[in-house]
């Protein structure tokens, strides 16, 4: 048994790539080792800005010998067959054995592979892993041909056992493996030798390198939280930023600094975004006022002035950045308070898509559509129209020009500053939602109207110019838009025929085709909600299938019914009735759509089925008319017993033609009754 330690030491690896790269390194190397017969007990990986590290414990010190027997062609088989066999086995003819088989003399190959020392296998596997590493973006450097994420400088690769460590010898593009690594770039740049992982990790820490990203992140978080707490403040959580910052430092040193008073009145989101995007600072909030009052930055070293110079520098950069933000905010407020006209005018010069006109033209369409949708969601028409007209005005603002992700939110601030109704500001912020399957759906009526109008305009527009998503390509995020409309409709309980809304969208879209696209999205959405595809198909086959609220109500009730015992049995009864009808109708060349009459019934079970249908058909029709699908399903459930009893006791194909015909018409009555609920022929099982 031996332990493997591998460190790939390079120039700074982008923070966002470190985690994935260390996982890939582990997967590729361990797979390669196991494939070559070297099993191991456990493995772990680490990453810092300058190194990827892999440690494997309990690795076999050599791969086991392998003996394999292969049966070949018969001795009298054609030459080509033998040659093919030899190629596959990697042997020559004289190495084959001839054995007597049932069918005659047959060639056999016995391939014996001796075990190989671990070092030899490790060298091959690691070389291969480095040469073919799946970096999302890689580069060459100097005059070499090797690709790595940034120039690779050294490779530490050792196998250690109780009696010491040996370097696994190999060389890649002039880099020779060794047992050396270096500490922190500035604080301890000297190289030192390594015998095993424990010593490696301990020595690195002495050389100001914390190997484990999680340990760095925890340290940063704890220190930052405590510093904020000591001043009665609160650190604003940001897991993504924390992971990124932990990937930018080997020796994290947390420093907290002040935000100049000049900037404390900027919206907190502006401060948070500016500090995060430009400086990778955490924000520190005063919990009493909600204002962002301080920042936390993470340096990569300690200094003899305890970070004073570093903090002063960072503060200065922040001052310049926030001066820009403040300048934008003040300019924007002036335009907002004047009614945002300057911004909406500007949108006349911004192309949305060269076949779909300018942003301004698009906004006019959305406003008209939002007016049409308003009554459906209980919104005031005039307010919805006004909100739609201003919802995207902030796209022209300087702040959104600088920080695109603040779109909508700035609109809300500016609407408030301009004294517009709160609904208008809310619509500006919320109309982009929902952005994905888990994003919150706007429920405020005006926001919902604008959100639906925005998405329907986009969808009908791109449908009209035939720019539909194909395969994995969906550059305009139309799948997301369609799902957004579906979720808006369902979660706001909107009753509307989608095709009628499409007709009010961009001219020239094929509404039927677009509805099909919506149905595909709906299937995915409902599948996640536990509704099977056949149940959805059975409901899609019913009228008004572009009324998504109705459709989903029906599908949910049907799924519940389908999952019940009654449902399962009734389905079997339906299938039986339907199969018999199809077979008999085909055979006889007629359809049994006539009205069955109870007077021709001969058996009790038959009469009971008549009675059950008489008692429940009306209930089903009424329930369906009232869209009370649960009641329709329980009325259906009441048919289950009589139908089961019918099939148990009654021979449909009676000798007497009148009786047979009547029974087939009775089956058809079952089929017709059930068809009012959904298309049961499409349900599997």
């Amino acid at each position, binding site marked *: 048994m031996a332990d493997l330690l591998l460190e790939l030491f390079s120039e700074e690896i982008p923070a966002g790539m470190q985690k994935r790269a260390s996982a890939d390194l582990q997967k590729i190397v361990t797979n390669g080792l196991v494939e070559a017969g070297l099993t191991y007990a456990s493995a772990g990986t680490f990453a810092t800005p300058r190194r990827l590290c892999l440690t494997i414990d309990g690795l076999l010190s050599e791969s086991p010998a392998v003996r394999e027997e292969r049966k070949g062609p018969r001795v009298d088989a054609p030459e080509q067959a033998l040659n093919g066999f030899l190629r596959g086995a990697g042997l020559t003819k004289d190495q084959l054995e001839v054995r007597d088989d049932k069918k005659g003399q047959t060639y056999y190959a016995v391939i014996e592979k001796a075990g190989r020392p671990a070092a030899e296998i490790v060298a091959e596997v690691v070389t291969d892993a480095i040469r073919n590493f799946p970096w999302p973006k890689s580069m060459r450097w100097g005059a070499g041909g090797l690709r790595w994420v*940034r120039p690779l400088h050294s490779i530490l690769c050792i196998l250690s056992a109780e009696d010491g460590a040996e370097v696994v010898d190999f060389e890649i593009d002039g880099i020779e493996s060794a047992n050396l690594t270096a500490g922190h770039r500035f604080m301890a740049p000297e190289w030192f030798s390594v015998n095993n992982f424990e010593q490696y990790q301990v020595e690195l820490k002495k050389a100001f390198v914390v190997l484990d990203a999680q340990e760095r992140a925890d340290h940063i978080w704890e220190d930052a939280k405590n510093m904020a707490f000591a001043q009665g403040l609160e650190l604003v959580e940001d897991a993504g930023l924390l992971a990124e910052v932990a990937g930018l430092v080997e020796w994290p040193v947390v420093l907290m600094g002040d935000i100049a008073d000049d900037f404390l009145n900027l919206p907190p989101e502006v401060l948070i975004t500016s500090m995060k995007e430009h400086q990778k600072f955490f924000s520190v909030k005063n919990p009493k006022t909600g204002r962002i009052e301080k920042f936390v930055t993470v340096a990569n070293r300690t200094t003899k002035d305890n970070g004073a110079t570093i903090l002063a520098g960072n503060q200065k950069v922040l001052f310049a950045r926030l001066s820009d933000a403040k300048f934008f905010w003040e300019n924007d407020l002036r335009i907002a308070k004047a009614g945002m006209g300057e911004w909406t005018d500007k949108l006349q010069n911004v192309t949305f898509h060269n076949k779909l006109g300018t942003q301004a033209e698009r906004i006019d369409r959305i406003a008209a559509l939002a007016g049409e949708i308003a009554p459906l969601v209980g919104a005031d028409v005039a307010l919805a129209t006004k909100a739609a007209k201003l919802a995207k005005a902030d796209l022209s603002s300087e702040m959104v020009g600088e920080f695109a992700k603040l779109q909508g939110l700035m609109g809300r601030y500016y609407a408030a500053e301009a004294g517009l109704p709160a609904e208008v500001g809310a619509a500006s912020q919320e109309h982009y939602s929902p952005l994905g399957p888990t994003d919150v759906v706007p429920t405020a009526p005006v926001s919902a109207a604008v959100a639906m109008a925005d998405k329907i305009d986009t969808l009908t527009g791109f449908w009209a110019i035939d720019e539909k998503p194909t395969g994995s390509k969906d550059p305009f995020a139309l799948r997301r838009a369609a799902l957004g409309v579906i979720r808006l409709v369902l979660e706001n309980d909107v009753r509307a025929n989608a095709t009628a809304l499409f007709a009010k969208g961009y001219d020239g879209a094929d509404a039927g085709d677009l509805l099909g696209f919506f149905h595909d999205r709906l299937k995915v959405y409902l599948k996640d909600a536990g509704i099977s595809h056949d149940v959805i198909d059975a409901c899609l086959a019913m009228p008004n299938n572009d009324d998504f609220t109705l459709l989903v109500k029906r599908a949910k009730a049907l799924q519940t019914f389908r999952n019940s015992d009654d449902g399962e049995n009734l389905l079997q009864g339906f299938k039986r009735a339907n199969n018999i009808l199809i077979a008999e109708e085909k055979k006889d060349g007629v359809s049994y759509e006539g009205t069955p009459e109870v007077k021709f019934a001969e058996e009790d079970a038959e009469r009971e089925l008549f009675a059950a249908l008489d008692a429940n058909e009306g209930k089903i029709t009424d329930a369906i008319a009232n869209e009370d699908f649960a009641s329709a399903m329980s009325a259906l459930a009441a048919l289950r017993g009589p139908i089961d009893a019918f099939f148990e006791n009654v021979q449909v194909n009676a000798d007497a033609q009148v009786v047979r015909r009547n029974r087939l018409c009775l089956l058809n009555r079952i089929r017709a009754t059930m068809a009012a609920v959904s298309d049961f022929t499409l349900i599997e099982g």
Partner: protein
Amino acid sequence: MTITKPTCFQEIILRLQNYWAEHGCAIMQPYDMEVGAGTFHPATTLRALGSKPWAAAYVQPSRRPTDGRYGENPNRLQHYYQYQVLIKPSPPQLQELYLGSLEAIGIDMELHDIRFVEDDWESPTLGAWGLGWEVWCDGMEVSQFTYFQQVGGHDCKPVSGELTYGLERLAMYVLGVDHVMDMPFNAPGSAIELKYRDVFQQTEQEYSRWNFDIADTDTLLQHFKDAEAECERILAAPHDDPKTGKKIIMAHPAYDQCIKASHLFNLLDARGVISVTERQAYIGRVRNLAKACADAFVQTEAGGAAA
């Protein structure tokens, strides 16, 4: 080793010149044309191509018409200086060399926090890209550090290492100045003491006005077309010169026209006459010129072709 702090803008430039001269770069002079960045200098763009080793450093006045603020913004200028270093093949210790240059201009590594933060570089107009970082000093970007992978559509083999320092910003940081115009240009205490303001305030105003409001767009447009046509005409000329009987491929004169077209595009952009959709088309036209110049250069001796 303690290094004294520089006292003025030009001292920082001089120290960088000395540092890179000591480390084997040919100290070149600015290219005598209007460019948007030091990368456009043929000592970078063209010399990054082909197999011949190269090492050059120079100051390049750079013009970004849209960044003009009439000299009022503390750190935005339509005309500023870049310091540019290009070494091919990139030496293994380029990061350490670079850090040495920061020390040379008075940044004490023991007190500051220097970080290499991912930043992939791409120039759509030059058909060029590379991987590297922006270098942060205490949270401020002080340089771009790039390993060129492709220029003018050609793979860079070997790879050049490129360093770009934004001189004004870097100097303001080192000198502790908050507004660029307040920065000492020559040494404080000189007989005639000059601040950045004395040298550039007036020109920033004049050019801002011209760039934004006065430059004649029809003329600029015509110049753009002329430069494009001339570039193509130069490259279409037969390689064999009938007068000297020599093979003379005119990659550099053609590239001058490409530089011109690029700057004219920037001016048109500042005048606000290029729409979003047209933008891409103009960038594509300049890129085509850059690619054609690169194609020509690699057929020349400096471009690594057999003589």
